[in-house]
C-alpha cells in the first residue's frame, strides 16, 4: 500500500515536472530573439512532451517524438537557419511593437479561456461513456499482447490503412515539392 502510494506520488511529481518543463520551455521559445535559441527551446519542449507521452503509456509515440520531431524536423529547421545565416541584427529584431504584443497576449488568453470554458465540467465520466470506460479498464488490466507496438500498429494497418498509404503519397509529393522549390534556378537568368 505504502509503495503504491509512493509510486503514485512519484508519478504525479514526474508528470507535473515534465509539464512545467514543457510550459517554461515553450514560453522561453516564443520570447527568444535568436532563431537558433528559439529552436533549441522548442527541442526542449518536445523532449518534455516525449516524457509526458511515456507517462501516458504511449511509449511508441514518445520514441517517435524524439526521433521524428527532435531528430529530424527540428534538425532541418536548424539547418535552414544556419543555411540562411540569420545572424544579422535586423533579422533578429523581429518582434512586433509593444501594443501588438500585448494585443496578441490578450488574444491568446482569450482563446485559452474559451477552450477552457468549453471544457468546463468535462470530467472523465462525461468524456467517457460508462460502457467504454469498463472496456478500457478491462483492456488496461489485461496483459498487452504483441508488446506496446501492437495496439498502435493494428489500427494503423487495418482501419486506417488507406490513410496510411496516402501519407506515403503525401511525403513523396512533399519531397518532390521541396526539391523543385529548393533548386537554384539556372535557367531563369
Amino acid at each position, binding site marked *: 500500500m505504502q509503495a503504491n502510494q509512493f509510486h503514485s506520488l512519484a508519478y504525479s511529481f514526474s508528470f507535473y515536472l515534465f*509539464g512545467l518543463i514543457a*510550459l517554461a520551455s*515553450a514560453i522561453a521559445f*516564443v520570447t527568444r530573439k535568436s532563431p537558433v535559441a528559439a529552436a533549441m527551446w522548442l527541442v526542449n519542449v518536445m523532449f518534455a512532451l516525449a516524457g509526458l507521452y511515456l507517462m501516458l503509456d504511449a511509449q511508441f509515440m514518445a520514441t517517435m517524438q524524439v526521433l521524428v520531431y527532435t531528430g529530424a524536423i527540428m534538425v532541418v529547421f536548424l539547418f535552414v537557419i544556419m543555411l540562411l545565416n540569420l545572424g544579422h541584427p535586423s533579422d533578429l529584431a523581429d518582434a512586433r511593437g509593444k501594443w501588438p504584443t500585448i494585443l496578441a497576449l490578450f488574444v491568446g488568453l482569450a482563446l485559452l479561456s474559451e477552450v477552457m470554458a468549453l471544457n468546463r465540467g468535462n470530467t472523465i465520466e462525461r468524456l467517457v461513456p460508462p460502457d467504454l470506460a469498463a472496456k*478500457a479498464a478491462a483492456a488496461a488490466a489485461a496483459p498487452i499482447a504483441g508488446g506496446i507496438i501492437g495496439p498502435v500498429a493494428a*489500427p494503423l494497418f487495418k482501419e486506417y490503412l488507406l490513410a496510411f498509404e496516402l501519407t506515403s503519397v503525401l511525403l513523396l509529393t512533399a519531397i518532390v515539392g521541396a526539391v523543385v522549390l529548393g533548386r537554384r534556378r539556372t535557367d531563369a537568368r
Partner: protein
Amino acid sequence: MLVEALALSAVLFSIGVIGVLTRRNAIIIFMCVELMLNAVNLSFVALSKLYGAAGQVFVVFTMTVAAAEAAVGLAIIIAIFRHVKTVNLQNINLLKG
C-alpha cells in the same frame, strides 16, 4: 492526469498562437506552428489512454504531415529568401493581389 494533460495542451497551443501573432521571422512562425501541432498531439495521446490506440495513430499521421510541411515550408522559405533576401514577413508581400 488526463485533465492536466489536456490543460497543458491548451496552454501550449495558445502559446503557439501568441508566437504566430507576435513574431515576424518566418522560420520562427513555422516553429510556432510546430508547437501548436505538438500541443494537439499531446491531447491525442492523452485521450488515447481512454479511447484506445486510434488516437496514437492520428499522432503518427500528424507527425507525417508535420514532416512534409516542414520540408515544403522550409523549401518555400529558402526560395523566398533567395528572392527578397529576408525572412521577415513584414517585408514580404508576395501574396498581395
